[in-house]
Structures are given as C-alpha cells and as structure tokens.
C-alpha cells in the first residue's frame, strides 16, 4: 500500500483484498466486551473536516479510537479557516501538532492531493469535492462481499459480481471511487443515469453505461443508488424531480425486478422519495444500516495498515 489513500486507484487488487480481509477480522471486535485494540496507541489521527459530515467524521473517529489512537477533530466552521486561513497554513499547524494521519474531507477536488504535499503523515481522503471517496468504496465492497458471499468471503474478491450504480455520476465522488475499486476487484460495473449526469469521457472508464435503469435490474447482483441533489434541477441536468424519480428512482416495483439474492445499497444521506423509496430503504434487501457499521471496520483496517507499522506492507497479489 502507498503512504496515502487518496484515490481508489492507489489500491492494487492485493491491497484491496488485504484491507477487506483485515476488516473481516476486525469486525468481530464489535461483539466483544472490550471494543478496543492497543495497536495505534500513541498515534495521533486528525479529522480535518471542511465540509459538514457528522456521519463520516464519527465513523473515522470511532475507527481511530477503537485502535487506541488519539483523535483530534478539526471542523472548519468557527475555526480560523472560516476566517480565511488557507489550506496550506492549516496543514502546517497540523504538522506542528505531530499528526500521524490526517483524514480530510473538503469541498474542492484535489484538496487531499495538495495536503499530501504539505504534511509528513499519511493522508486519508474522506471525500474531496467531486473527485473520490475511497473508504466509502472499500466499505461498499466489504458490504457486497459479506452479503453475497457470507462465510466464504475471506480471501475472495468480487469477480463476476454485477454492480449497477445509478444516479448523478458526474458529481459523485462515491461513483468514481466505486467504479475504480469494484473493477479492480473483478466486478462488472454498469452506470445507469441520464446523459446529462455522466461525464463526457465516461466511455474511457472501466465500466458499461446505460441510459435506462429497468433493463439493468434483472442482471444486477447489486444496485447502488446515488444521492441526487435538488440543485441539479436548476442547472438543467434534468427537468424535474418527478421525472428523475420516475425514470431512475428505486421503488418497490423496480426492486421486484431484481434477482432474489440482489441487494440495494446507498452511501447516505438519502433523499427518501427521490432516488429511493421508503419501502426499499427499509427492506431486508437494503444494506444501508450495515454499511454504516462496516464503515467503522473498514476504516479501522485502513488506519491499521497505514499506521500500524513503519513502512507499507508489500503484497504479492
């Protein structure tokens, strides 16, 4: 593994499997009386969140604390950043505090890259603009593997599993990371979206593209719904929420067209009634709740593998 986790493309197939298998081991921690391991004792993990995201921040915080790391939370609101301190100066302050790892969420694509040039510790990208969110893709891959393979999951990848990702791909960092990671793990990925919400050069991505959702449903083992923001309507990406929902929303009727074993995923937060109906979100096929728990274990695996030793493990993949 490399020193930073900024893009899902940083992970080879072997790296990704190592993370998933490590997470598999760490998952049992949640059932123990003492939900803590001493491994990162004395290490400092800084959560540098320039965007509001309680869910992801808490996930990283729990992951770091369960490994006994010290956690410092830095959120942009009300801090010197709100008064105009630059990203670089914030980075230098963190350096002075001796951060071993910085988990950064920022509204600008490339912020994690830039930060990596200014700090000595490891940088974990928790979402930079519309670029990537690699730990989300890892927890999604982990969830898919567990759900679809159960007890035989350990040591295996996602070869042959068909995943359809639906929604605003153009603005989605979750989509970018998932396309990269899932295809690295051998899955067959299809994007389903209106043409306006697909990047111009999407034909160069390692996935298939469909403008129609219904034709993909019977062939999918996993359907991953992306959040669609209402603001996209004013920029003329689609005419109305109603039309979007009708053509690309996941409701009970569409869920019935999926194979029996197939699952529905969503990175959260959801727009109930827009991209996903309540009955789907609350159904047994939905992995939304376990994705949250899996987020903590996958992030523990990432932090352990980045900080738990001196250099980075060579993986013969």
């Amino acid at each position, binding site marked *: 593994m490399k020193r930073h986790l900024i893009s899902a493309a940083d992970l080879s197939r072997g790296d990704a499997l190592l993370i998933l298998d490590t997470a598999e081991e760490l998952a049992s921690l949640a059932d123990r009386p*003492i939900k803590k391991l*001493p491994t990162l004792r004395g290490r400092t993990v800084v959560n540098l969140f320039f965007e509001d995201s309680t869910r992801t921040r808490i996930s990283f915080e729990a992951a770091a604390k369960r490994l006994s790391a010290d956690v410092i939370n830095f959120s942009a609101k009300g801090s010197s950043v709100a008064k105009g301190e630059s990203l670089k100066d914030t980075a230098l302050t963190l350096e002075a505090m001796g951060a071993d790892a910085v988990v950064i969420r920022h509204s600008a694509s490339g912020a994690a890259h830039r930060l990596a040039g200014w700090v000595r510790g490891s940088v974990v990208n928790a979402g930079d603009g519309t670029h990537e969110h690699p730990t989300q893709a890892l927890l999604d891959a982990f969830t898919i593997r567990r759900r679809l393979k159960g007890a035989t999951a350990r040591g295996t990848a996602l070869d042959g599993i068909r995943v359809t990702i639906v929604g605003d791909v153009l603005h989605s960092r979750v989509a970018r990371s998932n396309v990269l990671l899932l295809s690295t793990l051998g899955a067959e990925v299809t994007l389903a979206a209106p043409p306006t919400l697909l990047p111009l050069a999407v034909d160069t991505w390692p996935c298939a593209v469909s403008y129609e959702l219904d034709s993909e449903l019977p062939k999918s083992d996993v359907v991953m719904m992306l959040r669609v923001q209402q603001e996209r309507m004013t920029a003329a990406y689609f005419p109305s929420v109603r039309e979007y929902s009708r053509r690309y929303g996941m409701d009970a009727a569409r869920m019935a067209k999926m194979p029996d074993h197939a699952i529905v995923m969503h990175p959260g937060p959801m727009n109930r009634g827009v991209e996903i109906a309540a009955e789907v979100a609350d159904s047994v096929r939905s992995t939304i709740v376990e994705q949250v728990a899996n987020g903590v274990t996958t992030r523990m695996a990432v932090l352990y593998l980045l*900080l738990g030793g001196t*250099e980075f*493990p*060579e993986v013969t993949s």
Partner: protein
Amino acid sequence: MGATGHPVAGRDGLAVLDAEEIRRSLTRIAHEILERTHGGDGVVLLGIPTRGVPLARRLAARIGEFEGVEVPCGSLDVTMHRDDLRFRPARALGRTDLPPSGVDGKTVVLVDDVLYSGRTVRAALDALTDLGRPRAVQLAVLVDRGHRELPIRADYVGKNLPTSQREVVHVLLAEVDAQDAVMISDEGRPS
C-alpha cells in the same frame, strides 16, 4: 539421542523432530493437560496462528479420544497486541475465533509451535484480557528453544531444544506444510 532412541539429526537443515516424535509429544501433552486440569474441566484450547491452531486442534482431538471429553477449541490472533509493530510493516491479521462458550471463568490453554523470547505469549495474554476473564491461563508449546526475554514459562513442552540465536527453528505441520517435522537451520528457511 532423540525421544525415539534414534540419533538426532545434525544442525544443518535436517529434522530434529520427525513426525513420529511430534505425535508422541502431543500425546504426552494431552495426557498432562488432562492430569493437571482434573480431566479437562473448564478447559479451552486457543491456538496462536499460524501453526498453533492445528496443534490446538490435534490436542483437542486427542483429549477427546482419551477421555471422551469435548474440549472447546479456537484461535487467538495476537498481531494487534505485538510490541514490535513499529519496527516492521503492518502485517495481515490472523483469525481470532473463540468457541461459543467464551473464556470467562475458563482455564485457557494457549497453544503455539515455538516458545522463544516470550513476547508472542505476552501479546496473547494482553489479547486474552480484552476478550474476557479466564480463571487461569496455561501455555503449551511444541518446542521451547530458550532465550526468554520476559518472565514467561510454558506449562507443557513437547521438546526442549537449546539453540543459538543465530539459528532458526522451523516447525512444519501437515495441515499447513504437507509434512510434520521440526527443523533447524542457520538463518532463513531451507529450500
């Protein structure tokens, strides 16, 4: 002289324990466990990955054969509790698999292939503490090669094997290595 009365092979990549000697050691250890725990009462065997795990299973099987007692058996990975993490790259984790009866109030017998500095066992004791509160913890090893760096000793030993610190002890087990043997070589695995 080896346990079987045959000459012990030399110290250049040849076996110091063969399959037969390993089998007898394990049989003896199984009997000793039964003796000291009043027939295996409340005993849980936890093997330390990698090779402690098949050894624990073999001991559980023998105990079952001899007394008809079913001793719960599992594995305890110690990677996260090691004291040398900062000196090497982060390692892949082994499996921690506790039997459903847990460890609270039990006599846990940790099982490993080689006892050397004692640091692995210290890590195992720490890991165990986070899992519950055993009544007692004992240690069974196939080979004790000396050179302890911590005040740790084994309760059950298959063979005492004096070594120099330059030497490497390799335990091969059929479940992992397709054969049973204990070998010694000077630094590095024999090919």
